[in-house]
């Protein structure tokens, strides 16, 4: 990804890159969607490793009962920052990285609609995560109330909470700017003939995700702003003694928080919907129903937020409403799973690394969805709320879901990005090691939750020891397995064999009409799509 071949396919040559900065200034000032996509992806991988180190520290402490290596307050900071970094630093920027690289290429656009704002959207992120990591070193330490920042604990917390609030504001601004860019690009810069219902499903899922971001990131910003004013400016939005309501924070937070989890998974749905048809050598089954199902999921995601709050004391009628709505959202999700399987049915399938991760996604995300259905049942959730069953559920949908899809996307598009093929054998090893160790880590957490182990605790009763040991061993195996991906990507970029323009026989989206690596400028003359 360090070469910048110039595209002369548009019929004109220009010398503006003679004046284009090189070296570090290239990366700081770039307005090119490919460069910015590369920045987002590398940033997200670094954050994934950083968040993973926090997780391994957590799992080291939890290997045995008792307090071994960290004190309880720091442990709570670890869990809080692990969540914030993985969500806002790893998963979301990775999805934006894929969007930056692929959306313009897939719709035949020369770049994003607002190229300079695209640069700002990225460079806000390193500043924000610096604030987050700095919070470990301020008096009182980092925020320690969980990534959900519930009042009244967050109102009383130290300076670390202020840094966290500022970081969230900055990351929210980055996401909103990025979403405006993506929506405008998709609506206004499609090539002639590229109607909405001809767009690749990855573009559809990102369009819908971007609308979700516009809708909910301001809500989070409002919530943390009120938290800030409660902390420092004498307001009492969430302070019961001042006439406020701490549960209102939960309502506002989860009104953002539940669509947020769909923001994290919809791009992955798009990636899987791209990979499975390519390696099945069949068109995606039920394209229109996939669009409608994704739209339904997005809209329904706004009607389920209080399933995170079944134990706050809401009336039974409210609990019933949110239980039914949560069960209902499984229907369009099931449509998508059915369509992925139907795409593979009687397809001429091969199982290269992208396809392995896509199939792994379908299987494990479905398992995570099933545990979500279990948690949707109010009386069951009242028992399982804040136990490790919930931790197992969301790691199945976010790690085996989002992250596996991103891994598949990296292997699928890496030849286009850097013009070289990765090592297939190493990719297969990466898949199987990730698959095995992921399940060793998180499957036992279902048992721990059902047995009653609470989450966010640095110590636990001795009857939970065995499965915690298993989970900790699995976590280290999973973490070390990711170094295979790093090694594979770096050696691919440096010395991989040259990749053809279309390394995947069944791939049929616009980016595969371009050379590999994709030229620095592409589609300066829009293609006509038939």
């Amino acid at each position, binding site marked *: 990804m360090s070469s910048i071949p110039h595209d002369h396919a548009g019929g004109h040559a220009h010398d503006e890159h003679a004046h284009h900065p090189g070296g570090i200034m290239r990366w700081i000032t770039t307005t090119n969607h490919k460069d910015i996509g590369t920045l987002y992806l590398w940033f997200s991988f670094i954050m994934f490793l950083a968040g993973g180190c926090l997780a391994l520290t957590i799992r080291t402490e939890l290997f045995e009962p008792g307090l071994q290596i960290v004190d309880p307050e720091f442990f709570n900071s670890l869990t809080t920052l692990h969540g914030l970094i993985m969500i806002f630093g790893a998963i979301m920027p990775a999805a934006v990285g894929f969007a930056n690289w692929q959306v313009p290429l897939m719709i035949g656009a020369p770049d994003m*609609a*607002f190229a300079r704002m695209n640069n700002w959207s990225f460079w806000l992120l390193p500043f924000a995560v610096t604030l987050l990591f700095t919070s470990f070193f301020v008096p009182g330490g980092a925020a320690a109330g969980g990534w959900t920042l519930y009042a009244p604990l967050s109102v009383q917390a130290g300076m670390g909470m202020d840094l966290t609030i500022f970081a969230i504001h900055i990351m929210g601004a980055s996401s*909103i700017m990025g*979403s*405006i860019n993506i*929506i*405008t690009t998709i*609506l*206004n*810069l*499609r*090539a*002639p003939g*590229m*109607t*909405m*219902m001809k767009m690749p499903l990855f573009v559809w899922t990102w*369009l*819908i995700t971007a*609308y*979700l971001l*516009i*809708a*909910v*990131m*301001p*809500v989070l*910003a*409002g*919530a943390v*702003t*009120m938290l800030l004013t409660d902390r420092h400016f004498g307001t009492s*939005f969430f302070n019961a003694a001042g006439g406020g*309501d701490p549960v*209102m924070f939960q*309502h*506002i937070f989860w*009104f953002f928080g539940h669509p947020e989890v769909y923001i994290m998974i919809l791009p992955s749905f798009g990636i899987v919907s791209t990979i499975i048809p390519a390696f099945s050598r069949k068109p995606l089954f039920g394209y229109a129903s996939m*669009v*409608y199902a994704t*739209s339904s999921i*997005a*809209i329904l995601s*706004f*009607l389920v937020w209080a399933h995170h709050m079944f134990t706050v004391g809401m009336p039974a009628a409210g609990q019933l409403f949110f239980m039914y709505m949560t069960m209902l959202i499984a229907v369009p999700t099931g449509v998508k799973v059915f369509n992925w399987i139907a795409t593979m049915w009687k397809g001429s399938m091969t199982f290269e690394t992208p396809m392995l991760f896509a199939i792994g996604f379908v299987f494990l995300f479905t398992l995570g969805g099933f545990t979500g259905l279990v948690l949707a049942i109010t009386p069951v959730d009242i028992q399982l709320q804040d136990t490790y069953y919930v931790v197992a559920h969301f790691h199945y949908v976010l790690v085996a879901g989002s992250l596996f899809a991103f891994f598949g996307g990296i292997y699928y598009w890496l030849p286009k990005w850097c013009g070289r093929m990765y090592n297939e054998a190493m990719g297969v090893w990466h898949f199987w090691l990730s698959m095995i160790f992921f399940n060793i880590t998180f499957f036992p957490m279902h048992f721990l939750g059902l047995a009653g182990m609470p989450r966010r605790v640095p110590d636990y009763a001795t009857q939970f020891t065995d499965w915690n040991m298993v989970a900790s061993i699995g976590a280290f195996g999973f973490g070390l397995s990711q170094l295979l991906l790093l090694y594979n990507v770096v050696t691919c970029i440096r010395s991989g064999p040259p990749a053809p323009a279309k390394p995947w026989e069944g791939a049929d989206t616009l980016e595969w009409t371009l050379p590999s690596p994709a030229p620095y400028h592409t589609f300066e003359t*829009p293609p006509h799509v038939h």
Partner: protein
Amino acid sequence: MANTRFDPAGDADSRRAASRRTALVLSSIAVTFFAGVILAQYSGAPGVGIAVLGFAILGFLIVAIGRNVRK
């Protein structure tokens, strides 16, 4: 977003103008939601205020996605 419709065959200036309109509408919506979350708390009944905002956000999403799905 009624005036943001883009003509793929149009020139670069009309494309830029359409993009600016789209961005302006979307950023206005984001600012409105942000302010609405906070101002809802100052209404006589915060629960009602935030519910109204919630319906507005849901309505935005239905209209935004629905318009594109119908194209």
